């Protein structure tokens, strides 16, 4: 009651934050660091290199990411909405640069810009952040005080906004990220109150486009092969289906308690490629067993739960839509990544948020968490 009559004192900076979310993210980063270390240790030892090289870089990425995330959390809420268009434009420019001759293909993915000094960046990761913020902004203008669901025109505008980075990313081609963007759009639109007809229509359109893309050969052979071998695992045991089957073998063989950190035979035997990036979950499954993998899932669940809570308690629709967008992003990407290692999703190039090794993704993810914290702070000022 007293809070109503007396203006509340601003709480300490730390108590403004959602500590549970912070701890969960920190837990994921810590666990992820151990997994990255284990995944890369043997390979580095065999090549007479520093076995902790990847671990160190991963920790540095996390540290930098935390700083950037802190900035995102501390930035003035209103300026978020002001700078949204700038961030959106910047990411689109970045995506265009990737497609230009300046862009580089690293590890088979044509999605990088090399900055020099050993640094490279993946604009697509930041495009996710930009899209979430941009859509939240578009759909929340003038909406408060009145319950107005987005009109058709608003939806079209949002789709148009999303289409640009999606098309650019599709040209790379990076199908996985496009799918994540699709689900971000769906998530944000859903929470914004757009009519079910629109949502249904979008889903249908998405399905048609996917089928059409496969039929018209827009996808590369290897992408088609991945889907084919996902549908029929026996198709090509040493080709497209190899990684998937090896991942399942590694995870399954971990059993209840796993083989122990650094003791994973498949991991140290290099049976699974891209283990410190896309297939990082297999390390958890093999070495930490069901217990460890469940712990990882639990931490992710906590992050998602807190994000949803932040969305529910948001004081304005911008915050709600932002939180919903971030949750959709993390939920879908995590599901695709883990599902791929478990064999219930086709192989895509999506990393696991907070756990996979990769600077751009880590920064983008931590910025997103920072934004969540920002919304939380805002709704905490009562």
């Amino acid at each position, binding site marked *: 009651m007293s*809070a*109503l009559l007396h*203006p509340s004192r601003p709480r300490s900076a730390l108590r403004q934050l959602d500590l549970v979310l912070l701890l969960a993210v920190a837990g994921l980063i810590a666990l992820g660091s151990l997994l990255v270390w284990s995944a890369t240790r043997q390979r580095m030892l065999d090549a007479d290199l520093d076995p902790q090289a990847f671990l160190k870089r991963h920790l540095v990425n996390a540290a930098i990411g935390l700083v950037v995330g802190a900035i995102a959390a501390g930035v003035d809420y209103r300026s978020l909405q002001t700078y949204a268009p700038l961030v959106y434009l910047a990411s689109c420019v970045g995506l265009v640069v990737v497609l230009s001759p300046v862009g580089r293909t690293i590890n088979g993915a044509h999605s990088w810009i090399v900055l020099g000094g050993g640094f490279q960046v993946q604009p697509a990761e930041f495009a996710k952040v930009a899209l979430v913020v941009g859509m939240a902004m578009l759909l929340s203008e003038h*909406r*408060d*005080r*009145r*319950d107005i*669901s987005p009109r058709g025109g608003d939806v079209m505008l949002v789709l148009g906004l999303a289409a640009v980075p999606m098309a650019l990313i599709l040209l790379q081609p990076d199908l996985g990220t496009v799918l994540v963007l699709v689900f971000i759009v769906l*998530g944000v639109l*859903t*929470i*914004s*109150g757009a009519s079910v007809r629109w949502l249904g229509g979008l889903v249908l359109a998405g399905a048609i486009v996917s089928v059409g893309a496969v039929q018209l050969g827009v996808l590369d052979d290897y992408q088609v092969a991945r889907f084919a071998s996902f549908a029929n695992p026996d198709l090509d045991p040493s080709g497209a289906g190899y990684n998937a089957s*090896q991942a*399942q*073998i*590694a*995870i*399954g*063989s*971990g*059993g*209840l308690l796993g083989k122990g950190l650094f003791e994973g*035979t*498949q991991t*140290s*035997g*290099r*049976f699974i490629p891209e283990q410190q990036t896309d297939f990082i979950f297999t390390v958890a*499954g093999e070495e930490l*067993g*069901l217990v460890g*993998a*469940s712990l990882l*899932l639990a931490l*992710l*669940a906590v992050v998602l739960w807190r994000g*949803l809570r932040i*969305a*529910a308690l*948001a*004081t*304005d*629709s911008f915050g*709600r839509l932002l939180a*919903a967008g971030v*949750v*959709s992003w993390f*939920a*879908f990407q*995590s*599901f695709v990544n*883990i*599902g791929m290692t*478990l*064999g*219930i999703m086709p192989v895509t190039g999506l990393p696991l948020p907070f756990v996979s090794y990769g600077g751009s993704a880590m920064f983008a993810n931590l910025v997103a968490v920072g934004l969540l914290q920002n919304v939380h702070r805002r*709704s905490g000022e*009562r």
Partner: protein
Amino acid sequence: MATSPAVDLQDAARDLRCEPRPVVTERSTLRLFVLQVMVLTLLATLLGRLWFLQVEGADDYGRAAVENRVREVVEPAPRGEIVDARGVTLVRNRTALVVTVTRSELHAEPDRGRAVLERLADVIGTPAATLAQQITPCGTGVVQPCWSGSPYQPVPVGQYDASDPDGLSKVLRIEERREQFPGVATAFAPVRDYPQGALAAHVLGYLGPIGQNEVGTEQYAGVPSDGLVGRAGIEASYDEALRGTDGVKELLVDRLGAVTGSRGRTAPEPGQTLVLSIDAQVQQVAEQALERAIARARTIPARNGGGLLRADSGSVVVMEAATGALVAMASYPSYDPQVFVGGASAKEYAALVDESRGAPLVFRAVQGAYAPASTFKVVSAAAAVQSGDYPLGGRFDCPGVFGPTGQRNFDSAELGVIDLRTALVKSCDTVFYRFGYEQWQRDGGSSPVAEPRDPMVPLAKAFGLGERTGVDLPSERRGTIADRAYRQALWEQTRDNRCAGAVNPALDEQRRRANAEYCADGNRYRGGDATNFAIGQGDTLVTPLQLATLYAAIANGGSLMQPHVARALVASDGRVREVAPHVRSTVPVDPGLLGFLRDALAGVTQPGGTAAGAFAGSSIAVAGKTGTGEVAGKQDTSWFASFAPVEDPALVVVGIVSQGGTGGTVAAPMVREIYDGIFGTAGRPGALPGGRLPQQLPGAAP
């Protein structure tokens, strides 16, 4: 929608502070709830799948994880050696350089490997077309040469001794330019080596690739799909003991196949050494005697005109009378077993089975079946006496012609009334015609009684004729006893054909009449059949080995032995498994009668006997029986079945030369030469003095 009071108050507070009111609409809440449910569903799905993999599937995946990493490397077991009774190595292994071609790799080339084959042909000297044929898997419609092994295995196309400089240079040419020879590989491989040359080739046999349909069967358990197994002779019948068991090394590898460790090793179990009862020196004596006899026979004119004796083939069996251990087995023509090392070419194999060249691959000692002729008289004489119809000391007429059937004696000789001993010594046919004919009459003649006695038939069976001896060699023939049952069965089988031939206008009158007669009553057992049976002619067939066991039973007092070539198996750890002599049965002949027969046979080699000339001056007392088999369309078969020494028989020697004239002319002198070679003569020591194999096994295996 009613808002709760708390919310109203909070809204009011916000208004006071000029802050926007949160718009928590029902729709929004619902949508958020939907999102929550979706997220929960995703997480639950992941958890469920994780459970499935890690709890339900832990065992399967655990195994798969191991299998991923474990590579089995086979450590082949060396094949056992084969040595003779005194330890002389007959078969051993040596290292060879082998050039192989893997067809599937070759066909992955753009021109299906034609250029590679051309280059290979240039190096090893075999025409490219032949190479292409050699690597084609055998199948319907595929002609020789072809590959009888698995289509995915490398096919050996060239093989050189490891010390052969020419072969080595060829292999090096391939190795130096490996990129020009995709699908071609060179390797060291163990191959069979025959230090005694072509000695005892038929007994030893040879190796050939395991057939597709044989891999994984119980008989060939553990043999890899590119393995060699015994295909003939002792290599085949003792293949399992000789091949041993391959060892396995389990290596741990990573994804790239690099070895990261070892998980265990099962040492290979080397093949056992096979000690034969065959004696190399006696074998040498037998083979040489056979060759010389055939060469000599070919200079002798045939008895009934028609030029010289053809002497197309022959065989010798030397066996221990008491135990059935085979000391020598020769077959002519023979071949060099080296031809099978590295695989016989189609041409080589065709030559080995070519009938016009005597089909050298056939092992006449066990696969050749011939009419025993007069050598059978010991059985018919014993049957006649044991039937009770003819006394042992009786005297019988030996006319030149046997009245009831009109059959003649040899050279129509007329010897008057003689005793049974003389009938055997001089081999009077008409005495035995009489035995056979009168027994046939007693059984009803043309209208046979319900159960005819036919005393010669059961005794022939008791002596092991008409069934396999059970020798430890493959593909043994069982021969034939041409009794009533045989006649009946043959008639039933061929009747339809012959009846059709009776009315076939394409055949001449005579042939049609013969067919008609056979069609009508070809199953009748006639008097002529009985007389023929008594002297070992007609359709009765025996192998030289069967005859040897028969005469051994007479020599050793009535035990029908199971002959064997192997004496013992010696494992690598020194364990010995000896092959014990096995008595198949006791011949139902009174010992006194057996003694009588031995004595009569002893007289055959004495002056007055049919083999007197051959054994004149022999220092060993040999007992035996000549035989001259008449064969429709061919010259006579020359037989001599014997044992020695008469007083205490140690060895049985049976010799046969197909189209070799009379028994006394060719076979008997051949056997004399063999006995001289075994027991020794004045001035020349024998190969096996005393005729007995050493009691001890040969010392440490070589």
